[in-house]
């Protein structure tokens, strides 16, 4: 059942079109992450839903009622801000109590409720402090508590983990799903970190160029992106993009031929290749020779030069260069990386054919049709 709907919402600031007929529908109890590159209008979208700004066109409905032009205080929503936006002259307790007071709740009831929220968010012991006496993590939890305290029908989270360090960020990533579940609230979560989007979203809505480019479950977006732009946003390192050509039921790229799993119209295309779909072995394919088709498991071997290895958290990124100078990035596990050389070396790259994604020249996805 659709709980929040945005219908063809547009917003301009002077000549700058931030949102252009963006539409989104969210179910009750769902957590939807709005994700996009910086400056894509994510924050503006939240402000329209919160009632801080009004859209130039379009309609916003919450629970079937139109709220497009209602004041923020009439919408019964909660919002946590990226900069926390705590009231500096009120204690953490009063900050969290604020939405309860505004709803006319009784004093004893408020105290009980704030204690409860404080306990859940593990800030029970600092509720009597002013914001300036709180650590960053406690500020962040206070701001979350304030947004949640009144059990709002809709919770808006504007990149709440942006300003906390890695340790706290992971702590909250573990904790947040449980907290949100406890409140059973409908959540819109804005972030520009694709990992956070995949970690926290029941669905992810990719916002780019003023509109939603794809709205789907995180794994679907990662495995089955609708466009090259979306594919590029997910993954670190980002996808490798190479030019290919479709002919005779196969695709040619990097001098290799991969049979297609279905039918695609012949012609030039662009192929995206995830770094984890390229496996590197230290054996050296004969230099200059046409790479051999290994055949088994649909992997194809390609002679490349390994130029650099840069560890990345629990993995390592390898910079590969093909004979004609094309750069490819591949990843391997941290342990495998320790046996790789520091300087240049000729190695073999194996490409998993099943993981190739095809796009037309404009970047729209080409999906092979079953034969």
């Amino acid at each position, binding site marked *: 059942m659709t709980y929040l709907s945005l219908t063809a919402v547009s917003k301009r600031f002077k000549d700058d079109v931030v949102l252009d007929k963006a539409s989104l529908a969210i179910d009750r109890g769902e957590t939807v992450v709005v994700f996009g590159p910086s400056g894509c209008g994510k924050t503006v979208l939240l*402000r329209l839903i*919160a*009632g*801080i700004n009004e859209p130039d066109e379009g309609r916003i409905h919450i629970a079937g009622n139109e709220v497009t032009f209602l*004041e*923020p*205080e009439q*919408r*019964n*929503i*909660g*919002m946590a*801000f990226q*900069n926390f*936006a*705590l*009231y*500096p*002259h009120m204690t953490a307790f009063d900050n969290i109590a*604020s*939405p309860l007071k*505004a*709803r006319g709740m009784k004093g004893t009831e408020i105290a009980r409720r704030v204690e409860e929220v404080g306990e859940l968010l593990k800030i029970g012991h600092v509720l009597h402090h002013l914001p*300036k006496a709180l650590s960053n993590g406690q500020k962040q939890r206070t701001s979350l508590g*304030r947004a949640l305290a*009144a059990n709002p029908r809709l919770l808006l989270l504007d990149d709440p983990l942006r300003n906390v360090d890695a340790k706290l960020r992971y702590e909250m990533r573990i904790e947040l799903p449980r907290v949100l579940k406890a409140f059973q609230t409908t959540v819109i979560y804005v972030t520009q970190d694709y990992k956070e989007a995949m970690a926290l979203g029941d669905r992810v809505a990719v916002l780019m160029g003023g509109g939603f480019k794809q709205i789907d479950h995180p794994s679907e977006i990662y495995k089955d992106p609708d466009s090259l732009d979306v594919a590029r946003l997910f993954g670190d390192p980002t996808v490798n993009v190479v030019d290919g050509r479709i002919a005779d039921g196969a695709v040619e790229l990097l001098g290799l031929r991969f049979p297609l799993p279905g039918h695609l119209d012949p012609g030039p295309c662009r192929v995206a290749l995830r770094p984890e779909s390229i496996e590197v072995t230290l054996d050296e394919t004969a230099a200059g020779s046409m790479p051999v088709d290994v055949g088994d498991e649909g992997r194809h071997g390609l002679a490349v030069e390994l130029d650099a290895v840069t560890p990345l958290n629990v993995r390592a990124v390898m910079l590969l260069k093909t004979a004609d100078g094309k750069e490819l990035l591949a990843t391997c596990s941290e342990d495998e990386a320790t046996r790789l050389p520091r300087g240049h070396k000729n190695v073999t790259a194996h490409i998993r054919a099943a993981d190739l994604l095809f796009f037309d020249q404009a970047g729209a996805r080409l999906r092979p049709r079953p034969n």
Partner: protein
Amino acid sequence: MQRQTSLGRVVRVGLLTMVGLFFLFPIFWVFLMSFQTNQEILRIPPSLFFEPTLHNYQVLFSGRLETQTGTLEVRFMQNLMNSVILATSSVALSLVLGIPAAYAFARFKFRLGEDIAFTLLSFRFAPPLLVLLPLAIYFQQLGLINTYTGLIWVYQLITLPLILWIVRGYFEDISEDIEHAYRIDGNGWFKTFWKIAIPLAKPGIAAATLLSFIFAWNNFVFALILASADKQPVTVGALAFVTASGIQYGQIAASIVLSVTPTLALALYAQRYLVEGLSLGAVKG
């Protein structure tokens, strides 16, 4: 520069003493004068040693000044009361008008907003003498001349722009998100203004109140032209000591001391709030 030599310290203390003496000497001298008779004041060379007298203060409090040419009525206490009424009411009115206006200028970008704000500030640029004559004529016709209402109205030229511009800056420094958060909590805009914006701009409001009070208190020309003896503040009232039989320096000094005291006390009292305001801003980042 890192390690301060004892010589450096001596030089620094010496320089500071000189600067302090330079600025404080006139005040100190006026303070001494207020306890001297006219003869002692006019003695050449002047002396730091004299028989202190409370005569000057007695004259101010009793309101009677005996001179060779007869007894003069002195309305100093009335003047002091006028100053209090005029400065307090003007500042109060300016706060009521200026704070909401400052908030509007800080938060809402409306057409001509900047121009209006600047026009208000420009009242402080024009020399008051420029508008005095027409103002006096208007006030005559409107029956506002020599009334508290008229003076308080004119004093708005002094106090309103100050309050508007200082407080506006403080409102602009408050993160809009804080106010948005309070609205989303379920509070209307007026409550947000009252519970969030005003408390957070308090140091600015305190500073603006203090400054505009001092400016209103010290005003001279408006009251000189637009008020007669019974509505005059101390600044104008001191002129009464320039009598036919000579200038009563002792009484002038005493009235200066008495009239400076309230503003000085106010400044000292407000100082800690001002400092607090400054340090609050420092940690806000």
